[in-house]
């Protein structure tokens, strides 16, 4: 279960959600909640599928890609995914630096370096199970955002109304495009491809078999639902606290105010610590997901259940990705710009990530009695269509709205 919590908390409530959910709530009130809810069902479907394939066929996502898409298209997907996940890791490391900066007052770049060293050490020293437990369970501090939402007494009927698919009335063309951009960004942020890479590889690390399938279903459902609850709480609190006073949150530091307003300093500190752990967890996930991808694609020894020197190329890969991400941050690039690039790049990669997974999960030769049923197939193709449409719309919307700035 901690794998699901880590994947969900780190995947859902990473730096991109902290900013996008808060901005979405501030600009459009509760009207984008349904996109979070819809995407959550999507990541549950593909998360469960990737876990099931890992448990039954013992095939991680990138191994499938090479076999199903062929070497050339597989390589293109690998490169695109590496770029998008690398940018995401850099954004997360920047996020770690920012939160430490809010907590200590020390310079942001210094804190990014310190945070990266601690993360690297934890990945080197801790076995996979303890990486999961540490980041997954401490990430539950993020629940302060759900409690804060209850404490500020939002208009619950309006919050509930946000779950109904809608486009607010009376929007100008420009606002409509911005609404579309936020919708696509939320789909991308919720269904980040690295979540499937990390979750399925984690299942293989933990040596899942068919007996673990009920646990996989529970983990994917509860874990991602929890992440979604937190992201929706951030959005709804922002709609209540920031929108009416014209604040459009630009950094994670603003989101922390959502807990400070009802609970004062204690709420602020819990929110900042929760954000630190969640963003750090996402940095670990993305960094390892990239190393998993490369190692699986080229057939290297991989896994954190092995000692670092027992899978040397995998170890060099994750250290290399971590250092490369830090170098990106040290160029003093704006973290929020990185977040936007990560979102746009990721959505373009999504269809290529989930297509081979779908093909294998519905192949009886590999999956036997655990092959996709009609529900998994139906939902799988539906969400494949959704991510494909979002991938086609992402770049034009990004350009037309200047990255959601209008």
């Amino acid at each position, binding site marked *: 279960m901690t794998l699901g919590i880590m994947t969900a908390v780190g995947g859902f409530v990473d730096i991109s959600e902290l900013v996008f959910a808060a901005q979405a709530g501030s600009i459009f009130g509760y009207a984008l909640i349904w996109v979070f809810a819809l995407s959550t069902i999507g990541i549950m479907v593909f998360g469960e599928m990737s876990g099931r394939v890992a448990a039954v066929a013992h095939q991680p996502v990138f191994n499938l890609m090479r076999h199903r898409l062929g070497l050339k298209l597989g390589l293109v997907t690998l490169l695109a995914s590496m770029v998008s996940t690398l940018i995401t890791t850099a954004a997360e490391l920047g996020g770690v630096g920012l939160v430490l*900066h*809010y*907590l200590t007052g020390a310079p942001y770049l210094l804190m990014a370096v310190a945070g990266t060293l601690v993360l690297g050490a934890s990945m080197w020293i801790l076995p996979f199970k303890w990486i999961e437990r540490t980041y997954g369970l401490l990430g539950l501090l993020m629940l302060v955002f759900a409690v804060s939402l209850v404490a500020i007494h939002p208009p619950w009927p309006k919050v509930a109304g946000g779950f109904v698919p809608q*486009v607010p009335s009376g929007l100008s*063309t420009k606002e409509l495009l911005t609404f579309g951009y936020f919708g696509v960004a939320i789909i991308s942020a919720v269904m980040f491809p690295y979540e499937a890479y990390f979750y399925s590889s984690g299942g293989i690390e933990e040596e899942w078999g068919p007996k673990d399938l009920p646990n996989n279903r529970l983990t994917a459902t509860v874990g991602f639902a929890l992440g979604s609850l937190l992201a929706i709480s951030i959005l709804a609190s922002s709609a209540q606290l920031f929108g009416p006073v014209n604040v459009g949150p630009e950094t994670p530091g603003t989101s922390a105010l959502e807990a*400070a307003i009802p609970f004062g300093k204690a709420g602020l500190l819990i929110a900042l610590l929760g954000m630190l752990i969640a963003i750090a967890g996402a940095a670990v996930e993305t960094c390892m997901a990239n190393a998993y991808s490369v190692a699986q694609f080229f057939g290297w020894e991989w896994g954190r259940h092995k000692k670092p020197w027992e899978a040397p190329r995998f170890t060099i890969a994750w250290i290399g990705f971590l250092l490369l991400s830090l170098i990106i941050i040290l160029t003093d690039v704006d973290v929020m710009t990185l977040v936007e690039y990560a979102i746009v790049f990721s959505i373009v990669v999504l269809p290529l990530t989930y297509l081979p997974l779908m093909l294998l999960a519905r192949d009886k030769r590999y999956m036997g009695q655990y092959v996709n049923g009609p529900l998994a197939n139906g939902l799988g193709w539906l969400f494949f269509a959704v991510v494909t449409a979002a991938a086609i719309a992402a770049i*034009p919307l990004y350009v037309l709205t*200047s990255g959601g*700035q209008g």
Partner: protein
Amino acid sequence: MKGTARARNGFAAMPRKSLLLLFALASCSKGPQADLQYISQARSLTAEWALINEQSSEGKLTDTYTRVMRADLREQLQTTAKSLTQPNSRYGQEIQAVLGEPDHASPQALRSHADQLKQIEDSLESA
């Protein structure tokens, strides 16, 4: 809420020429319309500064957080001011007035600046 298929498909239904025009406008416009995103940013940053000062005065924020957020907001406002294509305009002067405020400025004073910027933003958007 309209909820009609037409409203939901507003982007897809836009004529191709309009999209190309929007692309062109997005990439090469100048003047107040091009500054609109910076005015919007400055309004948001000023409103956020007011919120920080309000919460800080109620003892709800740590000193470190307050100090760091104020410094970051000021830095972002300075960057925004430098990005304006018309820095001597009414909105440019308003942003300079915000930057002239002390770190611990009253939330009311800062909200007044944010309201001014919001009015300018709305008038430019409706122009």
